């Protein structure tokens, strides 16, 4: 079965320092991977995705993610964290099975990022 794991409930980082939010996945077939961000009382916003190609994917707000097939990981990174990056981050994988005419998406449980001034 497809699954996504975010091993850290919370990550704290000082402003200006690099940040990493971890994600590992389990899929059959080629993975379609996504990162989303959720600010308080808001919906999820798409940050970036990996479908194929370069293992380093660049997204919105200076975020990037590194796809590592051998480690089945898709960690979210940013070189220099901002206080405004503080939010809840979700990793997701698109189910490779096309059931009933559409794909399903499986989400991790989320990681709360806190950037300290």
């Amino acid at each position, binding site marked *: 079965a497809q699954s996504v794991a975010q091993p850290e409930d919370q990550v704290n980082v000082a402003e200006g320092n690099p940040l990493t939010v971890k994600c590992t996945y389990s899929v059959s077939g080629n993975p379609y991977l996504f990162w989303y961000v959720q600010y308080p009382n808001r*919906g*999820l*916003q798409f940050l970036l995705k990996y479908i194929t190609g370069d293992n380093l994917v660049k997204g919105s707000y200076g975020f990037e993610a590194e796809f590592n097939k051998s480690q089945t990981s898709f960690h979210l990174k940013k070189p220099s964290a901002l206080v405004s990056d503080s939010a809840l981050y979700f990793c997701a994988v698109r189910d490779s099975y096309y059931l009933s*005419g*559409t794909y*399903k*998406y499986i*989400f*991790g449980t989320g990681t709360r990022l806190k950037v300290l001034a």
Partner: protein
Amino acid sequence: IAGITQAPTSQILAAGRRMTLRCTQDMRHNAMYWYRQDLGLGLRLIHYSNTAGTTGKGEVPDGYSVSRANTDDFPLTLASAVPSQTSVYFCASSNTGELFFGEGSRLTVL
């Protein structure tokens, strides 16, 4: 502004009452989804629809029903609300790529 509109934003409901959460998209996406978000559990899929006229069950469908009369609208109905349905509900749509989410409907069942 293109996107997904959900209503109501927030609602307090007595147990046993019927409630419909509305979702409308203007991106002409074929696939639409309803998720619930609960602390520590992430997002769980309730129901989905791949095109107008068809729907399917997600991982937590019990107590919920959906309809898809046209491409744009995908309402979620709680026939008889129970306290365990207290949650934040998100509607989303996709054209097989990334999901686009609404702002959510916060439902409290007392």
